[in-house]
């Protein structure tokens, strides 16, 4: 039973952030999908178009934030799902490590990509 008695509980924070990011994602994901499939058809996407959008700072920031929240939300979701399936001990730590690395890589690569699109690199 009661093994952890700190006021900072990872369970609660994770749960809470998962909801907050979800609420944020609803808006951005809908926007994203709409923009790239209905306003601009995906098959018409060109580097020029992408670059044009990315050069708008607001859009750029939104997309990076989108990436970060989605990554957190997705990876945290996967982690929770695995923990719920009974992941324990070192295995759990290992999975956490892998996921964190993957998440960082994803965000890193994604941000890099976004920067190139915006022509900043």
């Amino acid at each position, binding site marked *: 039973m009661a093994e952890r008695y700190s006021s900072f509980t990872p369970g609660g924070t994770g749960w809470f952030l998962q*909801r907050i990011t*979800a*609420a944020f*994602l*609803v808006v951005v*994901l*809908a926007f994203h*999908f709409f923009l790239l*499939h*209905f306003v601009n*058809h*995906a*098959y*018409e*996407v*060109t*580097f*020029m178009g*992408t*670059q044009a959008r990315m050069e708008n700072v607001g859009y750029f920031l939104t997309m990076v934030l989108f*990436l970060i929240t*989605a*990554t957190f939300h*997705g*990876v945290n*979701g*996967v982690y929770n*799902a695995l923990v719920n399936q009974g992941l324990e001990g070192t295995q759990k730590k290992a999975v956490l490590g892998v996921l964190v690395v*993957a998440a960082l890589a*994803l965000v890193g*690569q*994604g941000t*890099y*990509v976004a920067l*190139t*699109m915006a*022509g900043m*690199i």
Partner: protein
Amino acid sequence: MSQSYNRGLIEDFGRWKEFSAGMWAWIFHKFTGWMLIGYLFTHIAVLSTSIGGAQGETTMVDGEAVNIYTATLQGLEGLFLVRLLEVGLLAVAVFHILNGLRLLMIDLGVGLDAQDKSFYASLVLTGAITVASVPTFLTGVSV
């Protein structure tokens, strides 16, 4: 003193026929969530071609030199399979969003009595939105 032995399907998910709305919602949400994160990774990988694109790399399409990013994206978009997968992605995303909203409501303690109805509503809406978007997704596809 109790003995444990394998009661087969009673213990695992094999009893899917007896699942209730809430369980299905959970399973679908999981499934769609995993699909989405998987897609996110792929998505970024594909978009990485923009790194080359930005440096002016090109590739030959129909005898023309095209920006490699544009070429990759349009090449993929030209495939019927990709279009189909995109419809699937939309379905997955829409369900995850709708059910995600349902879950957020439940977390706030709203509409708990109607949790099964809201799940069915998510399903139906997902279906409707997906079907409605098929024309948009399939236009201009060169098979």
